[in-house]
């Protein structure tokens, strides 16, 4: 399409109302979380008076800090674990030569198309037989094993962009493969790692189904299942409910805004290579 002034004006004319509709739910969420509880039934859509009391209520009444911390902890361990597995295997698939390399790679990639709804029953039973049900350790194992292959796929695409000569030269100098990986490759991997970190952070922070199924003990729950129960608990206290939602979204927005560029770059990499 030509980028004439006419085209630009037309695009603005169409996109502007569209963006308003898209942004509306979040704007409404913020406004509702800041209004007084007794004005949700009959007050105007934009409240006349703003108050932060709903945030105080959400923060204290459901042990919000505890679940928030659970989410931070579970997400961090998953990110680190996935990184360890994915950099090692991604590097091997990109730069090392070994029999059945492609077969193994394709086999591992089948993970990407297996949805957790389809695997939740056997995974639940498996954790149960290991005695890991209702423990964050069990949840972490499932998170890491379910996510490592996609991260591996991203890391492989990233490693492929590094020149082979780099590794050849280090081999001639007599470094073992592990030394080469640690000393030569890892220091260059930062952009790839950043991409994996943001992807993994978002998907683990937002995961609901597995956490809601394998954890029953309320104290160990991360945020998403808690938000779900909050919905029933606060079915009429919308300011407190939306305040809880807003608080849960803050880390995600911060990470996205700060790492937007890597995120988009990683998505392109994933999309193009797919």
């Amino acid at each position, binding site marked *: 399409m030509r980028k004439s002034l006419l085209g*630009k004006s037309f695009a603005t004319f169409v996109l502007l109302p569209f963006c308003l509709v898209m942004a509306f739910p979040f704007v409404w969420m913020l406004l509702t979380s800041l209004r007084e509880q007794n004005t949700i039934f009959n007050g105007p*859509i934009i409240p006349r008076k703003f108050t932060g009391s709903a945030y105080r209520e959400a923060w204290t009444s459901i042990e919000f800090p505890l679940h928030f911390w659970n989410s931070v902890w579970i997400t961090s361990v998953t990110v680190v674990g996935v990184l360890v*597995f994915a950099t090692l295997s991604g590097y091997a698939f990109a730069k090392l030569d*070994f029999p059945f390399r492609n077969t193994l790679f394709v086999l591992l990639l089948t993970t990407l198309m297996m949805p957790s709804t389809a695997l939740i029953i056997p*995974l639940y039973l*498996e954790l149960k037989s290991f005695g890991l049900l209702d423990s964050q350790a069990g949840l972490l194992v499932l998170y890491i094993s379910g996510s490592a292959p996609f991260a591996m796929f991203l890391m492989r695409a990233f490693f492929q962009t590094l020149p082979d000569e780099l590794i050849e030269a280090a081999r001639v100098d007599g470094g073992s493969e592990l030394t080469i990986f640690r000393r030569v490759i890892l220091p260059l991997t930062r952009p790839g790692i950043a991409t994996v970190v943001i992807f993994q952070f978002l998907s683990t*922070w937002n995961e609901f189904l597995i956490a809601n199924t394998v954890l029953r003990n309320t104290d160990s729950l991360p945020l998403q299942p808690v938000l779900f129960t909050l919905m029933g608990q606060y079915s009429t206290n919308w300011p407190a409910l939306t305040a809880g939602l807003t608080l849960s979204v803050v880390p995600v927005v911060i990470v996205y805004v700060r790492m937007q560029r890597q995120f988009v770059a990683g998505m392109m990499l994933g999309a193009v290579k797919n």
Partner: protein
Amino acid sequence: MASAQFFGTPLRKSQRVAGYLFVLPTFVLFLGFVLWPILYTAYLSLTSWGGFGAPRFVNFDNYSRMLHDPVARRALVVTLVLTGVTTAILTFLGLVTAVLVNVIWPKVGVVVRTILFIPGIVSFVVSAVLWKLIYDPNIGTLNRLLGAIGLDSLQHPWLADHKTVLPAIVVVTVWGGLGFNMLIYFAGLQGIDPNLYEAAAMDGANTVQQFRHITVPSLRIVTGLIVSLGLLNGFKAFDVIFVMTGGGPNHASEVLGTYLYSLAFGTTSGSIPQLGYASAFSVVTMVLCTLAVIAQLWLTRRADR
């Protein structure tokens, strides 16, 4: 090739050993928590099991039961319809918004991209709860807005009516997924050679013709990817529906994921879990997802020609 590697030089040998060692940890996790569950669920789908004692082998009974279970049929139809409609809308809107964002002033484009993308980074639980409040029949914002602009007659218990519950779910899914598709299409647009448009313009092609004969064909691979991701996401749909309607009212929004979940982990306390029957739905879901991926590979190969 393979034999040359097997009897290769010492340099090659150390690479081989390192290669396997580096892949091993990921592969062990894969065997234990992906491959084994797939095989185990396939086995369970041929049994009848309440979770205690040994599973009883029943052959393909669960699958034939599925054909006679009205809820199962409903869930399959709803899954396919929701997936098809959502994928079509998401693909079309994704392309249109990407083209528009590409035309607009770059600085405005960044803002638009962010606004469209943010719904996709919050969890499905957050978006589902948010939209459930918006759809609320009594004090929901949608009904209040309709009332405020004089359209009281359109006010509706959106999620409680079996006629409107599916469109309401489609809206939420599109709202959350659009930004992702727009961004992938946007990246695809950057890869099209601008000379193509210039040449077409010189030949007298108008904007619509350029869009049809240059933009759409050039983006065929991207479209294949977006369609297949749309299908995958549709077949595995769970969170939004589970949170907003739980499959209701009266199974009107039941999909494979929510139905198998209620069979296995029953929301109604006291009912015996039907792990065998539920596993049959897992298998159906996996087959559908595999077909979606095969379709994409096929589309990509065709586009390459």
